[in-house]
């Protein structure tokens, strides 16, 4: 903002032409809310990778929009991450396997359609069906009949999930194929959102301009450039938008978004570039937020490689964990936007939700002497060297992998004990992991889908689970997870999950590195800005002056 005033007289012939462009940039942000509760704010955005459908959106950028235009049965409290009933009046079960879901009256989609039990059942059937190619289909995997609608290979033998039954307009029942006490908590995930009939009757039109039942409606959507969302004045829910709307602008580079924020061209950046972390406090002061998110970074191991699955390998893994100076790396590389991990979940769960600080114990403390001893006892590093694989295309993975390797090398007194193994693209990285081509530890990041300890353990470490990329398998762990899922009492379930987490620790199935924070910065026009536990801004609560 500094120079804008003296720009007038300083402007020479060229500058006049250039200055004209300055006015063209922020066309939408200054437009008032036309009496619908405050102004419109602009926010940085990334181009969603998949078509915007609830069951097809598995990344943050698309999820951001769904969170604004949809409300589901359950919503996670933006502050505490606790699952609270939204459209659901009640979700009842006696055996953790059969659920009766009753809906509140009066909810509608922004096109006027009523939200009924059918809106949910149809949406879930659509999401689960193999022929619709929905990337989040596995979320419906617990519902009875999923194997018919979405077989692992071949053609589907049913179009609808047999476990879903509509009782009346406001009631439906869900039968699961196994006991799962945490099921109601998962229902806040976007994949479980209700869909209006318009979605099924004119799918292409819906994709061009999605219609939901949330506090915002989509005013216009130019794919790849920007989306204008407006406050929906007809919204009856308890969390109506406090601002007139949000303009999401696509940025390819978060550095440009940050520059735009500094120039007063943008109101909100929800991803501070790593290179700016050093200046962000002096640039923004208290308009910089840095809060925990449900993300943990770990190093996974290829257990399909016998070198890493031998009897001594467990000691080597633990030794490697102890050789990593987490505190120093989070401070120097990440400027404290990450916190050294001491368990395998995330602090956003809270202790009631399953987070247990220090569960990892000594195995996560930096202890060079013990680390060296353990690695030696375990038979040394397989092949004399570890290679940490990571994708080099995004994030600052190169920086921290090198730091982790340095830490290990220093401990072992061998400059070549650990090296990074960059892989060009994320797709290729995932590809090699999927084909089990990893020969050493590899980067694994996990962002929770829903705030439940189960989500941090079962998908990652259960035998043959969807994200068990290292193919770790342990009978005791599987048993404890099954037991925890069958538990009807949530606190009991949580403590059983923590026992299972203990098995992960004792075997060091993956090395926990750090919990990731969400970081954001905003302009002086905004107030009441916060990030939810998924590191997405709580848009509906932002006030624009």
């Amino acid at each position, binding site marked *: *903002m500094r120079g804008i005033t003296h720009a007038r007289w300083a402007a020479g012939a060229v500058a006049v032409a250039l200055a004209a462009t300055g006015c063209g940039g922020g066309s939408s942000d200054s437009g008032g809310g036309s009496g619908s509760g405050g102004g419109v704010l602009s926010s940085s955005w990334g181009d969603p990778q998949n078509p915007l459908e609830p069951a097809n959106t598995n990344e943050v950028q698309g999820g951001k929009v769904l969170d604004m235009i949809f409300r589901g049965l359950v919503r996670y409290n933006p502050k505490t991450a606790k699952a609270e009933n939204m459209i659901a009046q009640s979700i009842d079960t006696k055996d953790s396997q059969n659920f009766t879901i009753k809906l509140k009256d009066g909810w509608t989609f922004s096109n006027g359609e009523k939200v009924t039990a059918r809106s949910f059942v149809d949406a879930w059937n659509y999401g689960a069906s193999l022929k619709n190619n929905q990337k989040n289909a596995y979320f419906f995997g617990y519902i009875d009949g999923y194997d018919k609608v979405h077989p692992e290979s071949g053609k589907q033998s049913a179009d609808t999930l047999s476990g879903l039954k509509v009782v009346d307009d406001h009631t439906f029942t869900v039968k699961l194929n196994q006991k799962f006490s945490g099921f109601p908590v998962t229902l806040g995930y976007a994949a479980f959102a209700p869909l209006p009939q318009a979605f099924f009757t004119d799918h292409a039109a819906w994709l061009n301009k999605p219609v939901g039942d949330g506090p915002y409606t989509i005013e216009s959507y130019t794919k790849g450039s920007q989306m204008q969302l407006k406050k929906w004045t007809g919204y009856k829910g308890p969390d109506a938008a406090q601002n007139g709307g949000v303009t999401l602008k696509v940025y390819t580079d978060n550095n440009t978004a940050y520059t735009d924020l500094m*120039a007063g061209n943008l109101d909100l950046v929800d991803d501070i570039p790593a290179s700016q972390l050093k200046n962000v406090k002096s640039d923004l002061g208290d308009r910089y937020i840095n809060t925990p998110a449900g993300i943990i970074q770990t190093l996974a191991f290829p257990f399909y490689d016998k070198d890493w699955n031998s009897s001594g390998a467990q000691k080597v893994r633990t030794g490697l964990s102890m050789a990593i100076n987490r505190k120093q790396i989070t401070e120097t590389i990440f400027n404290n936007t990450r916190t050294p991990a001491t368990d395998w979940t995330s602090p956003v769960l809270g202790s009631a939700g399953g987070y247990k600080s220090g569960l990892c114990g000594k195995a996560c403390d930096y202890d060079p002497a013990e680390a060296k001893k353990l690695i030696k006892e375990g038979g040394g590093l397989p092949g004399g060297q570890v290679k940490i694989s990571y994708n080099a295309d995004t994030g600052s993975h190169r920086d921290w992998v090198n730091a982790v390797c340095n830490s290990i090398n220093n401990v072992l007194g061998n400059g070549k004990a650990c090296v990074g193994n960059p892989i*060009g693209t994320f797709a290729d990285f995932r590809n090699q992991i999927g084909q089990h081509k990893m020969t050493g530890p590899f980067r694994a990041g996990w962002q929770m889908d829903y705030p439940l300890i189960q989500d941090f353990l079962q998908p990652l470490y259960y035998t043959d689970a969807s994200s068990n990329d290292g193919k770790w398998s342990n009978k005791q762990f599987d048993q404890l997870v099954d037991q925890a899922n069958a538990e009807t009492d949530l606190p009991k379930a949580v403590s059983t999950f923590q026992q299972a987490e203990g098995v992960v620790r004792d075997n060091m199935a993956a090395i926990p590195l750090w919990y990731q924070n969400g970081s954001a910065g905003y302009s002086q026009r905004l107030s009441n800005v916060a990030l939810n536990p998924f590191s997405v801004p709580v848009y509906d609560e932002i006030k624009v002056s």
Partner: protein
Amino acid sequence: MGRYVVRRLLQMIPVFIGSTLLIFLMVNVMGDPIAGLCGERQCDPATAAQLKHQFGLDQPVFPQQYLTYMGNVFTGDFGTAFNGQKVTELMGTAFPVTIRLTIVAIIFEIVIGIALGVVTGLRRGRPVDTGVLLTTLVVISVPTFVTGLLLQLLLGVEWGWISPSVSPEATFDELILPGLVLASVSLAYVTRLTRTSIAENRRSDYVRTAIAKGLPRRRVITRHLLRNSLIPVVTFIGTDIGALMGGAIVTERIFNIHGVGYQLYQGILRQNSQTVVGFVTVLVLVFLVANLLVDLLYAVLDPRIRYA
């Protein structure tokens, strides 16, 4: 002349086929594009198989995938990007933006580059010449992203003269600075090229004759000196059109311009073969046409160069 044009057009066919095939193979060698689609989680096998089938990735790359693809391209179907958009739709939004950016850049090259070249060429060894030579040396040696970020920071944030990022509409006036940044290196080359060429031709017989005939200085320079000296410059600028369009990745990223460079970058990051191959195919065509035009322009500039 007519036969020459036909021969040139025929030569373009193998170049086109060869380059697209190469790109096609290169993109596909990078591994399974579906693997990255599901995020940190492995796609479930059934959905992955279904998606592969949908994008035609379950067939051998060569010749099936390539032939189907090329067959579709000739009917104007460039396939579908992973986000469900038609690649032609992406091109429809990206190319106009990049073409505008390229036009701005080329205008800078022609106007500033040639003007500076003529001035310095006529005043060899003088302070102006040395000054411009030094400046161009600096411009050439500093990478585009440094120039871009620096100007963005100074003009956009510190002084507030311009908006640091370009709006989705990307109008001509917004593209002035990005165009200058994109043009900067080529501009320096154009200046140096023109300078050398002018300085050389200044001492040639025909210029001496023209001066001896008593022609006005302005006419000697524009009609005699410049016309001949511009031949290498025109070659350079012509081939540069393609280079600028494809090489705008850095500039477009800095100024958040949603053009060809942006789409290519996204396509490569997400390993979206349909987008990458589609855009590169069009870029190859642009290169070829630009080269053809350069060759034809030769004949116009210098009647001595007449191909059979």
